[in-house]
C-alpha cells in the first residue's frame, strides 16, 4: 500500500466523518438543531441565586420577574465567569421563596457544580430551518406528559429530517405542536389545525369517553385537504377496554369513508403498547411510542414518494 493510497484513504474517511458530523451531528449534540446566530434576548431578568440544579430541573430563589418566563422560550443562565448554560422547561412551580422550572432539558451541558449567583435572560433560540420538505401539524392531547410524549417529535424529526412541525406551542425541544382537548367544551375552543401543513398527525394519549367521540369525529371529518394520521388505541386489560374498542371502531369507520385518513393500527400483546393505571391513567409505553414513530415515518416516506 503506497503512501499516496494511505493518504487518499485516510482523507476519504476524514471527509466522510466531517460530512456526517455536519449532517447528523445533532444526534449526539442536540444543541446543533438550534440556530444560535439567531438567538434573541426577550428579557433580561437580572441577577438571582440558584437553589437546585439537576438534569431536568432549574430551581431559583423567587423574584416576581421570573414568573413571567414562558415555556416556549429558553432560559440563559450565565455563571460568575459569564459562561452560558441554556435550559428549556415544560412547566414551572412556585413554592414559598423558590421557583422551579421542571421537566426540562439543558441544551448544551448541565452545569457541573452549583452555580450560586447567576444572571438570567429569557431568550428565543429558533430551530435551524433547512432541508424541510414536509410540513406536519402535530396535534396532541396534552403537553405535560412525560416519557415518550416528551421526545416523540424530536425522535420523528431526527429519524426523518425532512419533517417540519407546525403548531401554536413549542415543546421542550422547541418543536411546534398544538394541544388538543377532546372534551366537548374544550374542543370547540381550542383545536386549531395549522393551515400551511400538508399532513396532520394526531396523537391522543387518553381513553376517549363516549362524549369525546363526537370531537374525534369532527376533527377527522373537518380536514379534507390534508392527510390525517390517526392511531387506534392499543387495548389494555381493564374496565376501559370497551371504550377503547368503541373509539377504535369509530376511527376505522371514518377511515373507510375518507380517503385522506390513514389509520396507524397499534396492535400488540397485552400491556406491550399501552398501560392503564388508576392514578396515571391510560398511557402509551415507550415501545408504543416507538411503534407509532416507526409507522409515522414509514407512512410519510411512502406519501412523499
Amino acid at each position, binding site marked *: *500500500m503506497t503512501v499516496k*493510497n494511505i493518504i487518499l*484513504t485516510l482523507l476519504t*474517511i476524514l471527509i*466522510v466523518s466531517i460530512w456526517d458530523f455536519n449532517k447528523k451531528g445533532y444526534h*449526539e449534540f442536540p444543541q446543533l438543531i438550534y440556530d444560535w446566530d439567531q438567538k434573541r434576548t426577550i428579557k433580561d431578568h437580572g441577577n438571582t441565586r440558584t437553589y437546585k440544579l439537576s438534569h431536568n430541573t432549574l430551581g431559583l430563589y423567587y423574584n416576581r420577574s421570573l414568573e413571567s418566563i414562558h415555556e416556549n422560550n429558553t432560559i440563559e443562565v450565565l455563571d460568575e465567569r459569564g459562561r452560558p448554560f441554556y435550559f428549556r422547561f415544560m412547566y414551572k412551580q412556585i413554592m414559598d421563596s423558590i421557583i422551579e422550572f421542571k421537566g426540562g432539558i439543558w441544551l448544551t451541558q448541565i452545569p457541573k457544580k452549583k452555580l450560586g449567583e447567576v444572571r438570567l435572560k429569557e431568550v428565543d433560540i429558533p430551530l435551524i430551518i433547512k432541508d424541510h420538505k414536509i410540513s406536519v401539524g402535530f396535534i396532541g392531547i396534552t403537553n405535560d406528559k412525560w416519557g415518550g410524549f416528551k421526545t416523540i417529535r424530536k425522535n420523528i424529526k431526527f429519524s426523518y429530517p425532512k419533517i417540519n412541525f407546525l403548531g401554536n406551542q413549542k415543546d421542550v425541544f422547541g418543536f411546534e405542536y398544538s394541544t388538543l382537548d377532546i372534551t366537548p367544551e374544550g374542543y370547540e375552543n381550542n383545536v386549531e389545525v395549522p393551515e400551511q401543513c400538508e399532513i396532520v398527525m394526531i396523537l391522543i394519549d387518553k381513553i376517549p369517553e363516549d362524549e369525546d367521540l363526537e370531537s374525534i369525529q369532527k376533527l377527522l371529518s373537518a380536514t379534507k385537504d390534508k392527510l390525517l394520521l390517526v392511531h387506534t388505541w392499543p387495548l389494555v386489560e381493564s374496565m376501559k377496554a370497551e371504550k377503547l374498542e368503541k373509539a377504535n371502531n369509530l376511527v376505522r369507520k371514518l377511515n373507510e369513508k375518507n380517503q385522506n385518513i390513514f389509520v396507524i393500527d397499534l396492535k400488540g400483546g397485552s400491556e406491550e403498547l399501552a398501560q392503564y393505571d388508576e392514578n396515571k391513567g391510560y398511557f402509551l409505553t415507550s415501545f408504543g411510542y416507538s411503534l407509532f414513530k416507526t409507522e409515522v415515518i414509514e407512512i410519510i416516506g411512502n406519501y412523499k414518494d
Partner: protein
Amino acid sequence: MRLLGITKTEKKKLYFWLCAFVAMTLPFPKLSFNSFAIILLGIFSVFLQQPFLAKTKLIKKNLHWIVIASIPTLLALFGLLWTEDYPSATTNLKPTFLIFSIVFFSSSEKLSLSDLSKLLDLFTISVITASILAVGKAVWLDVQGLGKYYFYLDFGKVLGHHPTYFALFICICSIHLAVKANRENKLLWLYFVAMAFLGLVLYLLSSKMSIIALIVVLASSFLLEIYLYKNVKTNLWSRTKLAGILLLCLIFLTPNFQKRLTSEKASNFEERLELWEAVFNKYQQGSIIFGAGTGDGRKGLVKEYQEVGYEIAAKEHYNAHNQYLEELLFYGFFGLIIFLLQLIIFFILPIQKKYSLGYYLLICFMLFMMSESILERHSGEILYSYFMIILFSILVDNNNFIEKNDRIKVLNTYVDNLSNSETLELIDEAIKERKHIHHVVVNASKIVSMQTDLRLRQSVNSSDLINADGQAVVWASKILGKPLKERVAGIDLMQNLVEMAFQNDYKIYFFGAKEEIVEAVVKKYSKKYSEDIIAGYRNGYFKKEEEKSIASQIRESGAHMLFVAISSPTKENFLFENKHVLSNVNFIMGVGGSFDVIAGKVRRAPKWMQKAGLEWCYRLMQEPKRMWKRYVIGNSKFILLVLKERFKF
C-alpha cells in the same frame, strides 16, 4: 491467473487495502463505514480473491483453526438451541469472528507479521487522526459556546466511541509503538511524539483500566524477558520501562483521574462489585452449565440491579461490564470454559513463537475484558476479532508452511523434501509475498549435536524451511524408508539466491566470518553482479550484548535476504533469538563456512566428490586437526543413531 479481469498482483494489493480499510475506519465515529469495509472485505474474499473451489479447499484444510478462531460466533449459534428470545439473539451473534476467520484462513494471499505491523501502523495513524478530529470538534463546540467536551464521557461523545473502548484503541497503539520503537531503534522522536499525543488523549478519556493495563503490560514485559530471553539488560529501554510504570502510576494523581476516582460513582470499584453481584445472582437463577442462551442472557438483569439497589444500572440497562461474566450469563460454565480456551490458545501461540507484541496485546484485551463487556460493542468486537484472528492466522501459518512442504522426520529433526530448484522457487515466492522465512540446513554432525543440545534442536525445528546439506542425511532418509529427493547444499543454495537477488532486485546482508573475508565476499559479488544487491555486511565477531543492535542494524538495512556465516550453534541461536527483530527480512539463512569458500580461503571438493557424497572426506583432508572429531566421531554417532532408529534397538 485473472479472475474477473483482476491480475494476481492487483488482487494482492486490493486485499491488503481492504484489510487496511477495516483497520482505518474503526477509530472514526461513523461505525457504519467500518461495517461497510468489513462487508467489502468479505465479498472480495468470497467472490474475487480466488476460485470458489480453491477457497473451499483452503477452508476445509484450515477448518480446525477456523473453528478455534470463531468460537464466540459458534457459541452464539449453539446458544440459539435453548434461547427463547430470537429477535434479541440475532443482535448477539458476533458474526465478525466467523467472517474474519474465513477471510484470513481461506485467503490465498497470506498476511505476514510485517503486514500485521503495517496494519497496526495504519490503525495507529487512524486513531491519531480520529483523536485530532475529536479535539477539533470539542474546540469548535467550545468556541461556539455550545459546551465543553474535554473529559471522559463528554470527550467520548466527540470521539463517537465509548471512552473505555477508545482508550483500548490507544493502549493497543501505544503497545505497538513501544514494541516497534524498541525493535527498530530509529526515528525515536516520532514514536515519542505519537505516544505523547496518545497519552494526552488518554488523559482526556481518563479511563482507569487503560492505565492499569499499560502498567501490567510494561511489568509483564520484564517478566517475559526474563523467561524468554533470560537476559534483562539495564539498558535505556529497561530504564524507560521503569520510568513509564512510575509515570503511569502518577497519572492517577492528576486532576482528571482524581475527578474520576472521587466524584464518578458509577464506575468505581465498589459499584462494579455491586453490578457483578447482581449479574452473578442472575446467572445462578438459570442453567449453571449452559446459561440462558443467546437471546436471554440479560433477561431479568434489570430486576437484579434493582434488588441490589443499583438504580442507574437498572435505568440504563447496563450489561455485565465483564466479558467473562457475560459468557457465564449467556452460555454458562460451558461457554466460559470454551471462551477461556480460545484465549489460552491465543496467548500460548505468541509465547511459543516469541512474538512479544502478540501476548502484550492479549494481556491488554484480557484486562479490559475484566471491567467491560468488550465483545458486546461493535468497537470492541471488531478490534479484538480483527487483530487477534490476523495474528492467529499468521502464527499458525508458520506451521502450515512446514506442513505443506512434505516435511520428513529424520531422527530428531524435520527435513523438507525439496529439490534445490523447488527450494529456490519457494523462497522466491515467499519474498514476493513479503513473508518471513527462517531457513536452516542440517548435516550429520548437526543432527548428532541436536541429540543433546535442546536449544539447537528447538531452533532448527522451529525454522520454516529445512534442507539436508549433508549427503549422509539423504542416505539416512533412504535407510529409514522416507527418502529425500536430493541434497540441497547450503553453499549452492546461497550462490543461486545471490543470482536470484540480482535478477529480482532483492538486497542481501552478509553477516559473519572475519572482516577481510566478508569484505572479499561482498567485493566478489558486487563485481560479478552489481553493488545494488548489497544491503550491508558485518564480520561475525561480536559480544553477546551486541546481538540486538546488530539485528536492528540488519533490519534497518532494508535487506530481503540475510546470510549468516558463523559456526553452529551460535548462528542458529542468533537467528532464533532475534527472529522477531529480523521479521522485516524476508529470508534468513545460516551458511556456516561458505564465506571462506567464496572468498577463496578454503577450496571446495571437486564435483565428483560432491556428487559421491565425499565432500566431508575432502574437508577432513584439508583440516584434519579441526575436522576429525566432527567427521570421525560425529559421523560414527550418526550412523549408530540411524541404525538404532532403523532396527529399533
